[in-house]
């Protein structure tokens, strides 16, 4: 499947096969979740990042099902470059109606970055002016967990983390995704 046909697929799924909801409700609800975490964890932003990632991971494990059902993708991605393309053009399109740009491939084709021009989770958001949120908190960290969880279900073990965020005063919002390994099918022991 070529890159343009994936873009078309993403567009089609979004238009025809996706129930929609007011974006601001999602934005504000996400904000409320993050705020609650910050409160519960007493401003320990490293811990907030971790918790967000964990929640995202739980989502990812279940989201892949929804993704496969709606996108009706039959064949496996041939390589990690294809995977990246599908994440951006079909995955993100389908759930958040955005297509982050894929950049900065490493020479071994195992690492790439997603650049978020738009980030619906972060509309209306400004980080607290407490001197540490802007250097410690990755506000949209849930997305990393989602990708990690979803890819794990299709046998890819990856590491995903943000390296910059406009909320922190950076010029871009960039997530780095790193393929650790393909998970081989493992036969259960003593399988008769």
């Amino acid at each position, binding site marked *: 499947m070529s890159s343009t046909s994936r873009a078309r697929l993403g567009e089609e799924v979004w238009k025809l096969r996706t129930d929609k909801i*007011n974006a601001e409700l999602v934005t504000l*609800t996400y*904000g409320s*979740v993050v705020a*609650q975490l910050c409160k519960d964890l007493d401003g320990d932003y490293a811990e907030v990042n971790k918790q967000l990632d964990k929640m995202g991971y739980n989502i990812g494990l279940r989201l892949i099902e929804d993704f496969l059902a709606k996108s009706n993708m039959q064949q496996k991605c041939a390589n990690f470059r294809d995977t990246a393309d599908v994440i951006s053009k079909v995955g993100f399109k389908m759930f*958040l109606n955005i297509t982050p740009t894929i950049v900065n491939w490493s020479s071994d084709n195992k690492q790439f970055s997603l650049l978020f021009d738009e980030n619906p989770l972060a509309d209306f958001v*400004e980080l607290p002016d407490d001197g540490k949120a802007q250097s410690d908190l990755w506000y949209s960290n849930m997305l990393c967990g989602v990708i990690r969880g979803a890819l794990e279900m299709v046998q890819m073990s990856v590491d995903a983390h943000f390296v910059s965020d406009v909320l922190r005063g950076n010029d871009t919002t960039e997530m780095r995704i790193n393929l650790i390994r393909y998970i081989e099918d493992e036969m259960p022991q003593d399988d008769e």
Partner: protein
Amino acid sequence: MNRDPSPFRTASTASTATSPTPKYANLTASTNLRYSLTRKSIYDRHLNRTKTSELSKSAFAFLFGEMVQYAQKKVYGVQDLEKKLNLHGYAVGQRFLELLLWRDGRTAKRETRILGILQFISHQLYRAIFQKQADTLEKVRENEDEYMISDNDPVVNTYISVPKEMSQLNCGAFIAGIIEAVLDGHCFPAKVTAHTAPNEMWPGRTVFLIKFEPEVLEREALRVGS
């Protein structure tokens, strides 16, 4: 990102005319936040930009489910859990109200009567958030201070299945929180709770029971008198 609840919530006995000014006075202080030089800050972007934008309902369902799961970890019972969800909704409601009224611009109206504010909630607010009106708005006959708004199929409950041992739970508490925030924001302090009230057509029908604080009825009586 000011997370304090509205002053009306904790101090419902205080005069509703109390000004919250001292609390927010430090808004004028200079900020230490860093801003990108090449990107527009949230203050430069038009607030109507996301007015009609949509996301997938599953994205919300996943997020909401995770929110409920997290809330469930730290509670002692169904009531406690509903309270947490209510608070989440409250935070959302406060912000939605501000957005809505700002968008109405000069035509924004300040509701001063109980019926007016309830209609605002079941029509405008509901339509803005859920793209539909609430299904009914009724007065509880036995109690002067209680009203009910019902939703045949609340969006937040679509993908929630409540375990048997928590059959009392209704995650509509989140919407109840939104309603409570809007009422508070209009100086109609009230308690709002969500109750499952199925009928033949709608197994997931939810009723939001609104119980106003006595001073609201007192004021209403004065208005009727004049």
